[in-house]
């Protein structure tokens, strides 16, 4: 029952503990505020002495993501974490992993940009996370935790989805979720897979030609355009399957709602408070919280359009997810955006005021 212990910790710490517990084989990262506690916690926990997990501080985010690329090539469960500027540096490696169809976990604890920006929370990397981010036609599976508990829970979920589809997955959090402490029940310990299990489960992996099998080659390169198109079409078919099967979302007080807020991550937490306040003033408003940002809950948002008089996209950015909402509702209902920038978090009262003045 020790596994079920309720404890208080930061979102970043929860990521680290969950990684150790879900049988992660390797973490490669570089310090950046506001996510450095991930690497710090791993270093303090010394999992290499218990589960055998490798933890390495790389010389840069560029190197971190390429270590993840190398580790993922071998079928191991590997991950990195960073914050916005660092994740920008990783985009090349992420594109290579999407192209080579490799499972891995990237955690982005977002801060305000552009550029060096600020270290305070932001959600301004939605486009980067959900629309590719690097070069080429690709998607990551993007999970948006809204609590420390979800930070812990989504590590295993992200790895599961990443291996199911041989595709990199991202946990897109922000400085608020990373830095705040909440109650959390850590996931139970799961042993790391043995080398035999990895070789069996990942017959494509570069583990050495054990048993004299044919060489495995991991590459995203194919100079023959006809072949490259075939590869692209196969990857696109995989994305359609993910869109059909893996959409996740939460509904809150939508049953009788006349207005809906769509928000993810910490913005969804603020939205819930705003909804409490608004309802106390007689405004019937509910929340749709996308848990997977890609695949986006397009059908669910589309269905909202038939039920409510207006949708407010609450984001801690200048308006990014609002584009996906507008695409989903096809102009059937007014869609407004509200967000604060530069690391400022909207407060619940101002969201209520925006709701009142928007529709």
């Amino acid at each position: 029952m020790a596994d079920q212990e309720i404890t208080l910790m930061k979102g970043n710490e929860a990521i680290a503990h969950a990684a150790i517990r879900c049988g992660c084989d390797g973490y490669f990262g570089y310090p950046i505020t506001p996510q450095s506690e991930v690497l710090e916690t791993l270093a303090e926990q010394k999992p290499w002495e218990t589960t055998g997990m490798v933890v390495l501080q790389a010389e840069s985010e560029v190197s971190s993501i390429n270590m993840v690329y190398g580790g993922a090539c071998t079928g191991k469960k590997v991950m990195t974490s960073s914050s916005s500027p660092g994740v920008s540096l990783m985009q090349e490696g992420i594109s290579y992993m999407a192209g080579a169809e490799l499972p891995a976990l990237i955690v982005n604890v977002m801060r305000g940009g552009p550029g060096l920006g600020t270290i305070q929370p932001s959600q301004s990397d939605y486009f980067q996370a959900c629309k590719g981010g690097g070069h080429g036609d690709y998607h990551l599976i993007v999970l948006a935790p809204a609590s420390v508990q979800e930070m812990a829970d989504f590590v295993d979920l992200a790895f599961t989805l990443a291996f199911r589809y041989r595709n990199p997955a991202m946990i897109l959090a922000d400085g608020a979720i990373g830095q705040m402490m909440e109650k959390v029940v850590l996931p139970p310990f799961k042993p790391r897979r043995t080398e035999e299990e990895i070789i069996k489960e990942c017959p494509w992996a570069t583990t050495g030609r054990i048993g004299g099998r044919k060489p495995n080659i991991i590459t995203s390169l194919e100079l023959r355009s006809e072949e490259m198109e075939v590869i692209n079409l196969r990857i696109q078919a995989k994305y359609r399957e993910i869109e059909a099967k893996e959409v996740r979302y939460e509904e809150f007080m939508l049953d009788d709602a006349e207005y809906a807020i769509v928000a993810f991550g910490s913005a969804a937490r603020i939205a819930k408070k705003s909804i409490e306040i608004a309802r106390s003033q007689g405004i019937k408003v509910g929340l749709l919280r996308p848990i997977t940002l890609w695949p986006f809950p397009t059908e669910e948002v589309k269905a909202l359009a038939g039920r409510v008089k207006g949708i407010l996209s609450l984001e801690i950015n200048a308006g990014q997810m609002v584009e996906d909402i507008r695409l989903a509702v096809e102009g059937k209902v007014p869609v407004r955006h509200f967000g604060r920038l530069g690391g400022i978090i909207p407060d619940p009262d101002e969201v209520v005021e925006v709701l009142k003045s928007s529709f």
Partner: protein
Amino acid sequence: MTREEIIEKGQVVYKKPTLLNDTPMHYCPGCSHGVVHKLVSEVIEEMGMTDKTIAISPVGCAVFAYKYIDVDWQEAAHGRAPALASATKRLWPDRLVFTYQGDGDLACIGTAETIHALNRAENITIIFINNAIYGMTGGQMAPTTLLGMKTATCPYGREVSLHGYPLKITEIAATLDGTCYVTRQAVHTVAAINRAKKAIRKAFEYSMQGKGSNLVEIVSTCNSGWKMSPEKANKWMEENMFEFYHLGDLKDTGAVK
């Protein structure tokens, strides 16, 4: 008649290593890559590591190395091979892990990855082909291009005031505490080839013995990029490249440990 029927048992004095497959290489005639590929294949085979080798190919002329040597390969982004190798070796410590990189990949865009992987004493080997030019992209200036040498991006010859000095990254590597064996070889003569093979074997063995990181530079020609016949290129290399890039071991701490 098959090859086996033609060659009588006991008469074989030389053969292509089995790991080197029959795919026609895309390398230019006279290029050093083919020889180095053969040496790497022979060493892996002779060490009995065929089923335990994980190799990392670069971006550059050797990008398709994975097509020719029958081991498991990972094709890295430009310059990042040592990062892939670091993680791979740490996750699979009993595997033979090496990278195969050119001068642009290793000594320019990937300098940080190279220096830090070597200095972390990752138990890997880096095979470094230095031909002082960017071959694959069509003969542009490399970090190792000699002063006065003409390339597509220094058509009047490399000049300090415009381009700075050629980088002796192997000398830098030898100063790092993490490196075990650092050597500079060539493959232009039979004797040189034999020495280069011994160097590769030593580096691979040290990496498997956990003695730290190893760098084997092979000073090479690029007859296409240099616009010379293979024979002339070899001569030019001896007269010019070896003047600046001295052959021999720069560091070997493996034997004493």
